[in-house]
């Protein structure tokens, strides 16, 4: 067993610095690496490019990094839930690249799986495809999209072990698995770090080879963005 476990969060984030490109797992606030984000806030490193489907809300998730003006550029598919984001974007302080959600996922997966680029039909004929190479396959048009290049991927799983194996819960899985191994260093935080051998190899979602560092998060707030319930009849 190759040990990926680190004892402290500062060891987990060792090597992060200004002007780096980071990937963050999560959809909305579900499945975001809360502990890594909290440590990046503490470190107050600046000029970051962040690849993440969303940009958090004003006081949680990546909104915490935006609040301290740590982010130079966001690469996302949907960013609507955040007033400070809007202010920085409209004032020109923050650069934003909006890309289709499936393209975002596949550019991560391409980086993980060793593809330099992929062809996707998404965005063909729209401003997203402007300046990009296009090609016809079997009568349909596709856009060439390049694999991401990132320094760190920060992901969050439900359970993991010291070998770096990960299991996710519910829709908190989202972008996390495709970001593992898609950056130079993947840092996984888990709600529960279990002894090696406890996870059934048949049930592993992400094999440990894609993870360089793993730690158990201190706490998880797991904030709900849109609490929606029905009446008991």
């Amino acid at each position, binding site marked *: 067993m190759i040990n990926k476990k680190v004892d402290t969060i500062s060891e987990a984030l060792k090597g992060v610095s200004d002007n780096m490109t980071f990937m963050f797992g999560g*959809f*909305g*606030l*579900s*499945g975001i690496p809360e502990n890594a984000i909290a440590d990046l806030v503490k470190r107050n490193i600046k000029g970051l490019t962040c690849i993440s*489907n969303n940009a958090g809300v004003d006081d949680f998730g990546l909104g915490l990094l935006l609040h301290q003006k740590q982010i130079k550029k966001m690469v*996302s*598919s*949907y*960013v*609507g*839930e955040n007033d400070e984001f*809007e202010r920085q*974007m*409209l004032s020109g302080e923050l650069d934003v690249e*909006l890309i*289709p*959600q*499936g*393209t*975002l*996922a*596949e550019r*991560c*997966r391409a980086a993980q799986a060793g593809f330099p680029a992929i062809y*996707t*039909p*998404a*965005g*063909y*004929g*729209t*401003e*997203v495809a402007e300046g990009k190479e296009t090609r016809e396959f079997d009568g349909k048009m596709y856009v060439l999209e390049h694999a991401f290049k990132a320094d760190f991927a920060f992901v969050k799983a*439900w359970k993991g072990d010291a070998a770096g194996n990960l299991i*996710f*819960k*519910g*829709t*908190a*899985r*989202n*972008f*996390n*698995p*495709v970001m593992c191994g898609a950056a130079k260093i993947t840092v996984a935080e888990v709600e529960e770090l279990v002894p090696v051998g406890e996870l059934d190899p048949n049930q592993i*979602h992400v094999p440990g080879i894609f993870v360089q560092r793993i730690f158990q998060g201190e706490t998880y707030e*797991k*904030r*709900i*963005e*849109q*609490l*929606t*319930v*029905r009446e*008991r009849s």
Partner: protein
Amino acid sequence: MLDKNGIAKRIAKEVQDGYYVNLGIGIPTLVANYVRDDIEVEFQSENGVLGMGPFPFEGEEDADIINAGKQTITTLPGASFFDSATSFGMIRGQHVDLTILGAMEVSENGDIANWKIPGKMVKGMGGAMDLVASAENIIVAMMHTNRAGESKLLKKCSLPLTGVGCVKKIVTNMAVIEVTPKGFKLLERAPGVSVDDIENATEGDLIIEGDIPEMTL
């Protein structure tokens, strides 16, 4: 004239037994309420769930189980969770049978605009561009005109496009319209709406052949 629930009710009739269906935010979400209960349908949410159920009872919500609108949901027996690449693989690979989404504008050749208004805050396209570029069966659910009373069924879209030549059918508060190679073809009228009313509210050319039946809900 239909209200939003009426539009959803009419679209629900397009949902067939054995369909995997992706519902967009807004009117499309309401369609789930009107699907016949004697057929088997699974709803896909692009953030990674197939087999979505109703909202949870109070106190049973789980932060780890949400839909694409970030709302807490439940799952039904037979449901599955998966990552975002797999989710869009289902969409791009045309494994999802029916996609229902809203629009700001649709043009005669099936172009759709629904993600960006220049000069206003741009929130992003989310999964809309992937959906419209790949789905074979796309139904647009929308009001026939915008708040200013202007037609949303145009010769050519004026807003930035989400996808080109992709919309097959449009259900509005006034009509059911098919997008054919020759343009908009009127299929059905909403209750109490005349063919003239629909023509007047449609900027694009409208193909009208024979008697146009009133829709049944």
